[in-house]
């Protein structure tokens, strides 16, 4: 059974990259064919990941060449969420119709492979390699749209700098431990602390935490809609997951808590003053990252569970918001008969970001606040509530803007179905733990 599960993991990582070669045979003008291939490819990955979830059992570890992987039910769930979100983004694109060059298609496939690899990567060097592969493919994808070069350069430059810091820290860390496994250092004094600090700064830059968020706004608002949706949701999730994986060795939890709170607060306040949907949603994304960083740094079971619920929710919420933004800005408005579908997406996504029932965002934030209450960290509770308030204000400003939009063209049913399904999943994540009573066992 374990060999079947290993085969499924390897297949999930390799399949998107290999199947990307199909796009060489498809001409750029054949948008429909391309989109159907994308949908089929992500559907196969989705089936493989669902099968893996059935066969994973208690979890297992394995090595391929020199890459080390660890597969647990929780990580399978995260990978399944990433593939499901990718599938819905690709289905959205059937109606939206964005099409790039052959390079765009190939890099999109590499991105999906690197995201799944990044989820299951277990040691430092494997995590580094998949994070760098994500950087490489995402950098090109941002550039693929007209006028995207500045955003792509900012993204690549800052993330490359972060990669340097991460590699530097990994090398020094390995010199202390003798390998690349994630294990606590025997002692953490002056220089060892500096090494951990370098690793942390590198990762915080990759996830776009304040004050290392300079690339986020332009990368999410100036790239193609499907790219922004995947980068903000799945790619951000892989960086946060690595942050979680190295948390046991960090011993810098207090500092990370402050970074988390500052990120959530700063991004929520700045989001109020943004003039475009996508810029506003980019700051929503940064704020959500702040909440998750705080949850992981608290480290209690309830906080970590809250962090993971937020992590899985954000894989769907961020694409939901960016797909909505793509719908209204690039299709110049909505028709009355479909208006409610798209509005349902906007309201659900924004409610989840602001932590309003009955969404996954509410459940995750409730658990995080509860764990902060247990830790008697009352200041953080107040600051997080303030952040949520500003996010709500920002949403209300977005809502006011939607009613003023022109209604010129009719969106394709695929775009609306994708938005509806993403919104439904966000609500289900919030409802299932409550309905089953699982949440009260924590």
């Amino acid at each position, binding site marked *: 059974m374990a060999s079947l599960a290993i085969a499924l993991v390897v297949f999930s990582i390799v399949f998107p990259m290999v199947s990307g070669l199909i796009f060489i045979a498809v001409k750029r003008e054949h948008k429909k064919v391309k989109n159907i291939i994308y949908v089929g490819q992500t559907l196969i990955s989705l089936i493989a990941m669902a099968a893996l979830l059935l066969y994973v059992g208690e979890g297992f570890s394995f090595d391929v*060449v*020199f*890459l080390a992987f660890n597969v647990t039910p929780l990580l399978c769930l995260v990978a399944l969420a990433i593939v499901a979100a990718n599938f819905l983004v690709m289905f959205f694109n059937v109606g939206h119709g964005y099409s790039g060059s052959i390079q765009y298609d190939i890099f999109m496939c590499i991105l999906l492979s690197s995201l799944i690899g990044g989820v299951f990567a277990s040691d430092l*060097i494997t995590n*580094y*390699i998949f994070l*760098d*592969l994500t*950087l*490489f493919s995402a*950098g*090109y994808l941002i*550039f693929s749209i007209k*006028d995207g*070069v*500045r955003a*792509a*350069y*900012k993204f*690549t*430059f800052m*993330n*490359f*700098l972060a*990669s*340097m*810091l991460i*590699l*530097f820290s990994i*090398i*020094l860390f*390995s*010199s202390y431990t*003798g*390998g*690349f496994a994630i294990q606590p250092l025997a002692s953490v004094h*002056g*220089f060892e602390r500096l090494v951990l600090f370098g690793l942390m700064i590198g990762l915080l830059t990759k996830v776009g935490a304040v004050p290392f968020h*300079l690339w986020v706004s*332009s990368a999410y608002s*100036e790239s193609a809609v499907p790219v922004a949706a995947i980068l903000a949701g799945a790619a951000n999730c892989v960086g946060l997951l690595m942050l979680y994986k190295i948390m046991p060795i960090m011993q810098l939890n207090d500092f990370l808590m402050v970074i988390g709170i500052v990120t959530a607060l700063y991004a929520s306040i700045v989001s109020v003053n943004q003039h475009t949907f996508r810029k506003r949603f980019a700051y929503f994304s940064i704020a959500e990252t702040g909440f998750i960083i705080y949850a992981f740094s608290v480290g209690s079971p309830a906080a970590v569970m809250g962090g993971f619920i937020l992590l899985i929710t954000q894989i769907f919420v961020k694409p939901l918001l960016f797909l909505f933004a793509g719908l209204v800005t690039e299709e110049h408005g909505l028709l009355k008969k479909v208006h409610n579908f798209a509005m349902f997406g906007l309201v659900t996504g924004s409610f989840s970001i602001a932590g309003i029932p009955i969404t996954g965002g509410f459940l995750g934030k409730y658990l995080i606040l509860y764990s902060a209450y247990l830790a008697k960290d009352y200041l953080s509770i107040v600051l997080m509530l303030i952040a949520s308030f500003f996010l709500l204000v920002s949403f209300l400003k977005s809502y006011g803007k939607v009613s003023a939009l022109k209604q010129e063209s009719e969106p394709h049913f695929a775009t609306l179905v994708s938005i509806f399904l993403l919104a439904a999943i966000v609500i289900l994540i919030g409802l299932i733990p409550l309905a089953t009573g699982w949440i009260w066992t924590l």
Partner: protein
Amino acid sequence: MNIVYILLLLLSVMILLDRKFYRVLAYSVAFNLIVAVMSLGVEMVSGSMLFLFGCVLFPLLMWFAIEKCEKVERESMKELAAVTVISISALLFFLTSIGISFDHMMLFIIFAFSLISLLTAKNLLKFLFIFDVAENTLILMAYSFFSANILTNLPAVIFIEMATFLPLVLLTYLTIHMFKKYRSLNPWHLWQSP
């Protein structure tokens, strides 16, 4: 051996300060060659990979980039000389107080200096050379600190080299497009609103 580390530091300073890009390319090839020879002394597989990427592929890539963009920097580099002296002195003072060996200290200084240089360089093309210096210093640091099995594993070495080299290729490509679009290689254009 100590003189080699000092030479590496001097080359990295020259890479930052020199205004002629073909000369900068020559300095970086010299830097990469020294690193490759030192690596070959430690481990054959990784050393030859370093030679391939640092002394063959990187110069070709940079030659192409220089041809596509400007050949000479316009900005004065006088203020950077002051930054260089101050940053190296500060790093020297900091690392001496920790009490690490000379060769390790020099590698740290070169790496930290590269990061500082990235903040002070006034040309996007210069960024690429500085990234290359930082990358190769890191790899040398890896040899200097430990000799894990990974360094003799050819697929592993290729993976790590590719993981560091591919983003540099992308950055070069984007630099050329930045120049095409803005007709300038000033990094401050990046941070201004579109």
